[in-house]
C-alpha cells in the first residue's frame, strides 16, 4: 500500500484496550507513513477515539505496542510524546477559553521556550520569550488569525476556535499531528477551508492522522484510510478502494438504519 519501503513514522501493533469487560480496541494494527494524510474512520463506537487516546498517551494500552519513530512509546506520558513530536488536537473547541488568542498559542510554544526557574524570575528569559511570541504570531498568521491575537477566545466564532485549536497544536512543532474530528460542526465552506489548511500543514512536513465522520472530507483529503469496526481493523486502503469495499458499506449501511453516513 505504501510505495516507499521505509519504516512508518507511527505504528500500532496488536493494540488492545479494555475497560473492565468492554474491549474498546481489539488487536488493532496500522502504520502511518511520513508525509501522509491518514484517515481513521468507522461507525460510531468502533473505537476510534479510544485508539487516539491510547496513541496520544492518555490511556496505556492493555496489550500491544505503539511505535513512534521506531521507538516503543506505549504508555508514555502525553507530554513526553509531545516532546518527541507527537501532538494531538481535541474534539470541539477545547481551548484555554479564558486566555487571549495569542496566549493560547504561547502555551502551545511550551516546549520551544525553555528557560530555568531563576531566569524566569529575574526576566533573563526575555529573549526566548520574544522568540516564542514571534513563533506564536507566525503560527496565527498561517491560520489567518493574526488580527485576532488580542481577542479573548470566547469571542471567536466556532470555526475560528477550531482553527485556533490546530494552531495551538502546530505551535508545538509536531512531526505527527493527530486531528480528532477536525470538521465536525462545520458548514461546507468552512470544511473546504479547513481541508486546504490540513493539506498546507502536511506540505510543511507534518504527517497527519485524523479521525473524522465527514465522509466527503475524508475521501477527498486522505491518501490512505483505515476503517475500524468493533475495535478491530476492517479494511485499509486508498479512498477509492475503501469507498467501494463491500465490508465497509455493510459496516455503515448494514446496520439497522445507518443511512446517510457513507456517500
Amino acid at each position, binding site marked *: 500500500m505504501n510505495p516507499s519501503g521505509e519504516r512508518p513514522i507511527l505504528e500500532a501493533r496488536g493494540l488492545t484496550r479494555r475497560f473492565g469487560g468492554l474491549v474498546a480496541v481489539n488487536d488493532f494494527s496500522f502504520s502511518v507513513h511520513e508525509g501522509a494524510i491518514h484517515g481513521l474512520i468507522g461507525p460510531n463506537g468502533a473505537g476510534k477515539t479510544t485508539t487516539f487516546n491510547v496513541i*496520544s498517551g*492518555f490511556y496505556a494500552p492493555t496489550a500491544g505496542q505503539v511505535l513512534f519513530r521506531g521507538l516503543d512509546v506505549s504508555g508514555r*506520558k*502525553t*507530554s*513526553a510524546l*509531545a*516532546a518527541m513530536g507527537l*501532538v*494531538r*488536537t*481535541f474534539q470541539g473547541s*477545547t*481551548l*484555554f*477559553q*479564558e*486566555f*487571549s488568542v495569542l*496566549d493560547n498559542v*504561547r*502555551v*502551545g510554544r*511550551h*516546549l520551544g*521556550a525553555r*528557560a530555568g*526557574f531563576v531566569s*524566569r*524570575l*529575574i*526576566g533573563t*528569559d526575555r529573549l526566548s*520569550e520574544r522568540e*516564542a511570541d514571534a513563533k506564536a504570531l507566525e503560527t496565527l498568521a498561517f491560520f489567518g488569525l493574526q488580527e485576532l491575537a488580542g481577542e479573548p477566545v470566547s469571542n471567536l466564532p466556532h470555526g475560528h476556535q477550531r482553527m485556533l485549536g490546530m494552531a*495551538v*497544536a502546530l*505551535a*508545538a512543532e509536531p512531526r505527527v499531528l493527530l486531528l480528532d474530528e477536525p470538521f465536525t460542526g462545520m458548514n461546507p465552506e468552512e470544511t473546504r477551508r479547513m481541508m486546504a489548511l490540513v493539506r498546507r500543514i502536511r506540505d510543511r512536513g507534518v504527517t497527519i492522522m485524523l479521525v473524522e465522520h465527514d465522509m466527503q472530507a475524508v475521501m477527498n483529503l486522505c491518501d490512505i484510510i483505515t476503517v475500524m469496526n468493533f475495535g478491530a481493523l476492517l479494511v485499509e486502503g486508498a479512498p477509492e478502494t475503501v469507498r467501494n469495499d463491500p465490508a465497509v458499506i455493510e459496516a455503515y449501511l448494514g446496520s439497522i438504519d445507518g443511512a446517510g453516513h457513507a456517500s
Partner: protein
Amino acid sequence: MPTAGPAGSIRRAVWRLRLVFLFAILAALPYLLSYSQQEIAVLLVINVLLVCSYRLLTLTGEWSLGHVVIMGVGAYASALLAKQFGVPVPLSMLLGGCMAAAIAALLSFPLFRMKGFYFLIGSFAAGEIIRLIWKRFTDPFGGPKGLKRIDPFPNIETGFLSIDFYEPVNYYFLSLVIVSASLFVLYRVERSRIGLTFHAIHWQDRLAESVGVDTFRYRTLAFVIASFFAGIAGGLYAHYVGAVNPTRFSVDQMVYVLVWAVVGGTTTLHGPILGVVVLTVINEIVLRALGLDTARPLIYGAILILSVLYLPNGLESLGPRLRARWRLWRSGPAAGGGELA
C-alpha cells in the same frame, strides 16, 4: 495575565507610584496603632504571606486543606533548628521554608494522583498525619503542648544602630520586608511563563499536557513554591510568638485562610490581601469594640455566605465594579455638556 502593549509603560509608572504610596502608609501605620494593635499588625503581615502563597497553588486549580499545616512545618523546623542545633534564626527560617517545600515535594507523589475534591480531602488527610506526628512524638516536637521558649529573632546591635525585635514595631518592619520580598517573587512567578502554564493547567489540563506541559511537574512546582513561602510565614510566626503547638495549625485555622481567599477573591494578587486585611480589621477592631470577638467563627461564616451570594468574585471585583458604576453615573448627566465644559 501578562499584558504587553503601548499603554504598558504608563500603567507601570502609575503602579510604581501607587506602590510608593502604599509603602509610605505601611511605614507610618505602626505609629498610629496601640501596642496590642501593633502585635495584631505583625500577625496580619504574616497572614498576608500565608494567604498569598496559598493563592499560588490555587492558580493550578487545586485547593488544599493542608496549607496551614505546611506553615506549621516551617514553624516547627525553624524552631527546632534554632533550639536543638543552635542554627542562627534568620538562617533557620530559610531552612524552615526549605523543609516545608521538601515535605510538599514528597506529598506531591500521592496527592497529585488526585484532582479537585479528592485532592482537597487528600491534602486534609496528609495535614492531619503531620499534626498527629507532632502530637505523638514528644521528643522532639513537644507533643500536644508543642514547643515553647523558641529563640527570638536576634537583636541587631552595632555602634549606633540597635534594633530589638521583641518590640512589635520592629518585628512588624522585619516581617514587612520579608513578606514584601516574598510577594515580589510570587508576583514574578505568576507573570512569567510559569504562571501562564499554571493557568493553562487550571483551565484545560489535557490540552496543556498535549502540547508538552508535564502537568504533574508543574502542579508539584506550584505546591512546592507555595509551601516554601508558607514555611517562611511559619518561621516568622514561631520566632515572634515564641511558642507553637499542633492546635495552632489545625483545620480551623485553615478555614480562616479559605475565608480570606474566597472573600478577597483569587483572580488577582491583591484579592487575598484585601480579604485578610478587611476581615482582620473587622475582627480585631469592629468586633472587639462591640465585644463580639468570641463570636468570630459565627461572623466569619456569615461574611463568607454573604460574599459568596453577593460578591462571588470577591472584594477584588468591588473596585472595578464601583468604577464602572461611577463612570456610568458620571456619563449620564454629563453626556450633554461634557464636551463643552
